[in-house]
C-alpha cells in the first residue's frame, strides 16, 4: 500500500541550521530518502551542493555516516565501501551514493557505468538540479534546452539533456526510478523498494534550485510539482526492465491532461531570454518524451 503523508515517519536524520540555501530542495529530498531507509544508510558524496548541506569540519548536519569522495569517483568509492562492509558482515546499512547531475551524468558517469555493469550493491541517487549550482550555475549535461546558465549562450542552451535513466537502463540494472520532492510519498515508496533490491539501483530525482533556476525560494515545491504536471519531469520506475508511470504522472496519463511547459518555466529567470522558437522546441521535446513514456507504459 502506498504511503501517505501522515504515515511518513517522524524521525529525522538531518539537523536544522545547515548550510544549504534557503528553499533548497535537497533538504526535502534527503529528509525523505533517509526516512525511507530508517536512517540505516551510509552516504558517499562527491563535491556537490549536498556536501555543503552536510557541513564543514568539525561539525556535521546529518545523523548518518557520510563519506566524501572525489568528484568523478562517487560510484567507485561507494562500491568499494559496499564490498568492504559486506566483507566484514556489516549488513545493517544501505550504501547510498548521492551525487548531483554533474557528479552523475558528466564527470561521474564513467565510475557509475562501471559500477552498474559490475552490479555493485549500491543505491545511486542523482539529485538533478540541472547545472553546476555549487560552482555558480555553469551548464551540465543535464541542463534543459533553452535554459540559461553562466556558460550557455545568453539565449539559452541549444541541446537537450541526457536521458540518464535510459542510460542506466541500458546497463540492465534491476531497479531504476525517477522521483520528485514535490511528491514525497512516491519518493519514499521508491526508495524503500530500491532498498530491498540487491545490485545497482538508480534513482533520478528532480531537484529545483531557487538560486540557479532563478525563482523565489518559496516556490521550490511548486516548481517540483509543475515539472511533473507539465510532463517535463516524468515520475516512473523500471523494475527488471518493466517500465511504468507512477503517482502524478500516472494519473495525468490516465486523464490525458498536461499543463503547457510555459506554465512551469514562466517564473524561472533562466528561461527569461529564451526565444519563442526555443520554447516551442522545448515544448516539442517534452511532448515527444511524454508521449513515448505513456506509450511505453501502456505497452509494457
Amino acid at each position, binding site marked *: 500500500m502506498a504511503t501517505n503523508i501522515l504515515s511518513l515517519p517522524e524521525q529525522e536524520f538531518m*539537523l*536544522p541550521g545547515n548550510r544549504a540555501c534557503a528553499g533548497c530542495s*535537497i*533538504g*526535502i529530498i534527503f529528509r525523505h530518502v533517509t526516512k525511507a531507509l530508517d536512517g540505516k544508510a551510509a552516504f558517499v558524496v562527491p563535491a556537490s551542493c549536498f556536501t555543503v548541506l552536510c557541513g564543514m569540519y568539525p561539525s556535521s548536519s546529518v545523523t548518518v555516516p557520510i563519506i566524501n569522495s572525489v568528484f568523478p569517483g562517487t560510484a567507485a568509492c561507494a562500491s568499494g565501501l559496499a564490498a568492504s562492509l559486506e566483507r566484514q558482515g556489516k549488513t545493517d546499512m544501505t550504501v547510498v551514493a548521492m551525487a548531483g547531475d554533474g557528479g552523475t551524468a558528466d564527470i561521474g558517469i564513467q565510475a557509475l557505468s562501471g559500477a552498474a555493469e559490475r552490479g555493485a550493491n549500491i543505491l545511486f541517487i542523482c539529485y538533478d538540479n540541472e547545472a553546476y549550482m555549487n560552482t555558480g550555475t555553469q551548464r551540465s549535461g543535464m541542463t534543459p534546452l533553452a535554459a540559461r546558465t553562466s556558460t550557455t549562450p545568453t539565449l539559452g542552451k541549444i541541446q537537450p539533456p541526457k536521458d540518464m535513466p535510459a542510460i542506466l537502463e541500458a546497463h540492465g540494472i534491476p531497479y531504476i526510478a525517477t522521483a520528485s520532492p514535490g511528491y514525497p510519498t512516491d519518493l519514499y515508496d521508491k526508495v524503500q523498494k530500491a532498498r530491498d533490491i540487491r545490485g545497482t539501483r538508480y534513482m533520478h530525482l528532480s531537484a529545483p534550485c*531557487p538560486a540557479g533556476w532563478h525563482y523565489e525560494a518559496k516556490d521550490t*515545491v511548486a516548481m517540483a510539482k509543475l515539472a511533473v504536471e507539465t510532463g517535463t519531469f516524468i515520475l516512473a520506475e523500471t523494475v527488471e526492465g518493466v517500465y511504468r508511470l507512477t503517482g502524478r504522472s500516472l494519473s495525468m496519463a490516465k486523464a490525458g491532461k498536461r499543463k503547457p511547459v510555459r506554465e512551469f518555466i514562466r517564473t524561472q529567470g533562466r528561461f527569461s531570454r529564451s526565444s519563442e522558437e526555443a520554447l516551442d522546441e522545448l515544448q516539442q521535446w517534452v511532448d515527444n518524451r511524454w508521449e513515448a513514456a505513456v506509450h511505453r507504459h501502456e505497452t509494457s
Partner: protein
Amino acid sequence: MVETRHCEQQTAMSWPCAGEGGRTGDWRSMKPVLDPAKCIAAKKDSIVCMLCWVFCPDNVITRTAPPEIDLEYCKGCGICMEVCPSQAITMVPENEGQPALNVEETGCDV
C-alpha cells in the same frame, strides 16, 4: 601559533550538531508566522495535513498540532506558506516594527 586544544583527530571527521551553519535568525529577512485559527491541525487539535512539516527543507517545523516553527534555524524560504492549503502561514519581514532607514542621515555617498 594556534593551539588546537583537545583535538586529537588525525584526519578530518565531523560529528553531528544542530546549527552547523550557524543561527539563521541573524540573516533571515522574512520569517513565517502561523495563525492557529487558520491551521487545520491546530483547529482539529490532531496530526492532520502536516504539509508544512513534510515540505520544510530545513527540518524546522514539528509534526505536531499545531506545528511549531524553530525560528532559530528557519531560513525563511517561505515554502511552508506556499504549501499550506489554508493560508495559515504568512511571511513577515524580520525588521517589522523597527525604524525605517533614513538614507539622508547615513552620510554614504550613494
